[in-house]
């Protein structure tokens, strides 16, 4: 596998990254469930995820907030909708974002949520993982010559 910057195609466009890493998020959640302490990155990832959901909620309420350099409220909303299995009204999306945010808050404070809630959160994070993986590999083999 030889990846040289000299072989890079010029027309590569950077799409929107997620803004936090789902593997680290999942590990952080697992640690909280096991009542283990989080390292600095894991704690920060929890915060970034909550921030991401807050931006989605604000957008649903008609307010545009920026999540990270390059991602605005409408983009965070679109990304979030892509992770939902069911179709929703705007209020439904907001409710979902609030639910996930509350679950994260509860885990953060008490370290425990029900199995059903845990499964729901887990399923959502795996949907995020799919998006993250697609983002990072979508153009990979068209970008490099092997």
């Amino acid at each position, binding site marked *: *596998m030889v990846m040289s*910057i000299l072989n890079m195609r010029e027309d*590569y466009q950077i799409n929107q990254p997620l803004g936090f890493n789902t593997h680290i998020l999942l590990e952080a959640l697992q640690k909280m469930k096991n009542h283990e302490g989080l390292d600095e990155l894991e704690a920060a990832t929890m915060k970034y995820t909550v921030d991401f959901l807050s931006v989605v909620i604000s957008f649903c309420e008609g307010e545009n907030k920026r999540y990270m350099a390059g991602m605005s409220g409408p983009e965070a*909303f*679109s990304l979030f*909708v892509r992770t939902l299995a069911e*179709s929703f*009204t705007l209020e439904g*999306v907001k409710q979902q974002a609030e639910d996930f945010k509350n679950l994260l808050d509860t885990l953060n404070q008490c370290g425990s949520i029900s199995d059903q809630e845990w499964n729901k959160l887990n399923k959502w994070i795996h949907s995020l993982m799919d998006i993250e993986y697609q983002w*990072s590999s979508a153009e990979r083999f068209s970008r490099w010559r092997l």
Partner: protein
Amino acid sequence: MLTSELSYLNGLINDLYDFEEELKRLSLKVYPSPVLKQFITKELIPIVLNIRDIFIKDKAKLDEDPHYNISAKTKAAEIIWSSGYLQHFAWAISESNIKSYPLEIMSFFKDLIHELDTSNFEILAVPSHEINFSFSEVWLPLKDYLEKNIGLKSNNETLLIKLTFPHTHRHNLFLSCIYAHEIGHYFDRRNDFWGDIFTKVIKDRFILKKFKPILRTSSDVDNDAIRIVILQKVLGSWIREAIADCFAVCLLGPAYVYSTMEFNIFSSGRQQFHNNLLMNIYSLTHPPNHLRNNFQVKLLKELGLFRVLNNRLKNEITEYNDQINKSASYYRDSETRLDLDDTLYLVENKEFYDVIEELWKSTLTPIKSRVKSFLKNNVMTPKQVEEALRLAEERIKLAVPPNEYEGKAASVPAILNAGWFARLQYRADMEKVLNNIKGEKADYNFLENLNSLIRYALYASQVHKRWQE
């Protein structure tokens, strides 16, 4: 040889050694500038070492225990490397070329960024082999991304603005006004104007009831959230284009409109050439040419910049505007798969675009007010157009560079406009002064001569301005 976590990690580690060597070679180039060299040695190389170190640690654990589970941080680092973000960043630096730098026009935009945004920036000028311009900040999103994904922090707040431009047209000042559109995109991204405007549109729930795109799908997904996602993709892109156009018209006035007209001859003239058909193509990413031109012309009029043009110059704009408004509209009428769901397809037909067009038009007033208030006193004035008219008539017509007006340095917008005004009006006059505008190469030579005068004027006026200050 087996495909395994260990063999994959080995490959990644080798890639990163290779990448580090490339970065070291890159840091020895005459150009990049000292700032870029520092970016390579103080930012990029440490990032590469850090990511490689993450991989090496897990590789050692895998060597010890083949059943070891790859850590979350290693997976996060792999995603960063595989995304190509770092490589893209390095590629932009490697392609920067001072010899190709469109220096004269870029000084103007540098001053503008300095005034309206920040003084802590560097421009990466990257020549492209196609007729394409782009302007984007590449460091801060990467810095943010690294911090949020693997906890790598940096205190370097310098903006790295990547500018791509068509290599063969690097000194073509008649096309260079397109930069103003691209820099409009840059300011929009930095300030999230489009996000604010789009969010306000969506706040009106009635719009969501009205907007009912035709979706081909195996399940019932006709709901508000899907509609917003589609609108974000299409209307969001159209709003961004309108902001960039508005920015360019406010900054450079008629010169930008003439530049886009010229640019469209490149982009859509081929249809006419081969098929005798000029089309207004509706797309998910850009409003069709006639809508954009209508918006630009309307804005020129509102700013009072059209009124001060003479009839000849007005006609150039109105004739083009009439022509494209009479052109056929083209809708793909096909089904585009949305990235929401494998089974969800959007039908891009007239009905769909009619609603997008109506919504887009409703955003133009807030766009104008937002851009004008951002640009403050950089919005072009009728007085500057009059100045340009005089520069064209009193100087360029006689083959004299238009760098000075009434003893003062001429402004960049006035010089660029003067160039266009002369091109459209004074060719015959210039033929009398210049003796190489004859024969088969006449048109080419005329534009080359004119372009040289404008380039010189841009350079000289900047020197003059420094003396004035």
